[in-house]
């Protein structure tokens, strides 16, 4: 299959995942609006964007994993059910009344997608285009069998886990977008966190006195050895807490200690232990990297933010490279990134700080989930 054909098929698949769920959401919203109780408490128009978000996520997941049975909107019968069903619902609930038909569906769609800059007439035109395009895209999609399944085969247990995760996320997004009370609560809580809690967190950590930088250094050394957090996260935090200079110095020196520790672990305990610590494939990758770049490997690796800090330290310990050569190259190589992240940490605005802490929480959760999954699979085995 040519790349242009593949590109076209991918685009059609994505369009299909946007158009049909939009129409399905609109049909369902039109039906639910008939309950005044619901209509007064929920932004039912948001059903369409919610459906679209998850259809696109499932479609993209389907490009990676074999989850084909989940893309229900690609089934021919479902397509007709959605298109005709939505059309019929809209006609019936609006009692075939022209005024109602030209106002309610367009208004629902406009509110849902927040297209407040469009008039109802413009939304009506968009709606007709959506319906026609939805039918044409689905028809084309069926015709050329563009169904592309991901290569990765997933076990039944993994499918269940993905489904569970998606279901939880769906409920949350649905509640957030459809229920104004939930949305307001989440937005308000985020705003409060943004306005006050970062400073409180800073004060909280600083209340540890001398133990705050010691804790930070211990964290940095630990991350060097066991790699649960990217080093820049700690560098950024140090910049925020202790300022660019002192925070940067703390990050730089503790990272040097961590690098030295990794180097000596590798030198003392050898390849088998390092393979257990960072995996065999990672050590193989380091071998190739050192073969390719020779004595400049360490300096180069430190300058590249995408190369793992501890992996290079372990890798250097497994080569004949001398310690002081490694140490000086590490010191020089990590300086630019340390200065940059420390400065960014010191000057970060409230919203950047929030994003940063959200990032940390996500990483912590990811680590916890990964550790739990690993533990489960070990127990299972």
């Amino acid at each position: 299959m040519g790349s242009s054909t593949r590109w076209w098929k991918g685009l059609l698949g994505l369009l299909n995942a946007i158009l049909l769920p939009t129409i399905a959401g609109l049909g369902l919203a039109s039906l639910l609006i008939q309950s005044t109780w619901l209509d007064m408490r929920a932004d039912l128009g948001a059903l369409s964007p919610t459906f679209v978000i998850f259809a696109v996520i499932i479609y993209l997941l389907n490009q990676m994993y074999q989850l084909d049975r989940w893309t229900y909107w690609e089934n021919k019968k479902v397509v007709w059910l959605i298109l005709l069903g939505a059309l019929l619902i809209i006609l019936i609930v609006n009692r075939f009344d022209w005024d109602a038909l030209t106002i309610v569906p367009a208004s629902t769609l406009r509110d849902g997608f927040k297209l407040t800059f469009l008039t109802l007439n413009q939304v009506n035109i968009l709606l007709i285009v959506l319906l026609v395009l939805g039918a044409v895209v689905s028809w084309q999609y069926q015709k050329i069998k563009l169904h592309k399944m991901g290569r990765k085969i997933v076990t039944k247990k993994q499918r269940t886990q993905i489904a569970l995760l998606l279901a939880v996320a769906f409920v949350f997004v649905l509640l957030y977008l459809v229920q104004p009370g939930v949305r307001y609560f989440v937005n308000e809580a985020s705003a409060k966190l943004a306005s006050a809690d970062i400073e409180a967190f800073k004060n909280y950590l600083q209340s540890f006195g001398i133990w705050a930088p010691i804790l930070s250094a211990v964290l940095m050394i630990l991350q060097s050895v066991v790699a649960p957090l990217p080093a820049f996260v700690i560098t950024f935090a140090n910049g925020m807490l202790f300022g660019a200079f002192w925070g940067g110095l703390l990050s730089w020196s503790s990272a040097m200690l961590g690098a030295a520790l990794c180097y000596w672990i590798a030198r003392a305990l050898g390849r088998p232990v390092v393979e257990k610590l960072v995996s065999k494939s990672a050590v193989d990758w380091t071998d190739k990297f050192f073969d390719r770049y020779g004595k400049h490997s360490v300096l180069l690796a430190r300058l590249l933010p995408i190369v793992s800090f501890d992996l290079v330290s372990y890798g250097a310990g497994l080569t004949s490279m001398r310690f002081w050569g490694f140490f000086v190259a590490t010191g020089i190589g990590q300086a630019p990134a340390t200065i940059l992240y420390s400065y960014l940490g010191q000057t970060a605005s409230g919203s950047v700080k929030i994003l940063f802490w959200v990032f940390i929480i996500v990483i912590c959760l990811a680590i916890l989930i990964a550790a739990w999954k690993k533990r489960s699979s070990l127990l299972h085995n």
Partner: protein
Amino acid sequence: MKKLMSLFIAGLLSVSLVGCGAGSGGGEQGIKGTPTVAEEGVEVSQEHPLVIDKEAKTIKVYATVNGKYTVEPTRHGLNFSEGKYGDQALFTSFANPTNFHDAMVEIGGTPGNNLTPDTAGQQIEGSDVDVTVTWDGAPKEFTMSEVVNDSTGKPIQYKFGGNRERSIEAFTGCLACFDSCPVGITSNSSHMQGEFANKEVEFRGNKDVLPADGTPVVVTFKLS
């Protein structure tokens, strides 16, 4: 061991974050949403959505028509666009309900403040308020009863209900409700609290009178 360390560090960071959250104080209690303090001597517009005339004892609020509620029923007459139920009203206002409440007091209104969520079946009290609506090209100032169809046929009679604190707390955005309400700043005393919810009455915008969806309108509140 590696996983154990990961868990330890993740836990440490999480505890730090939780500790921070628990230890910090909340924001100051006050007005919610963008404030729109009432202005005097200016033309009402989207930029000046709340205009007060103390001498004439009137408040003008800038809003737009939500065409959906000329077809579907609603109990929300005029709601602040940033409020939780900003999309559920016949008229979408750009004025903050708290500022609107304070403007009502400024023109001499006396709030009823007699309803709570547990007083279903009771009637809103407070100063009587005449509410009219007009827009560019309108033949006259229409009364609320002329632009809204009440399924029971009763005339709409607004009162200044008050409810300042509850309005801030719930932040529904209600400036004017179609039945007696413990949250809305003003509400229709012709219908008891809960009548719409009990399906005893329905309100729809009068599409034979009102302009098209999205048309800017000026809603005027005048103490009787």
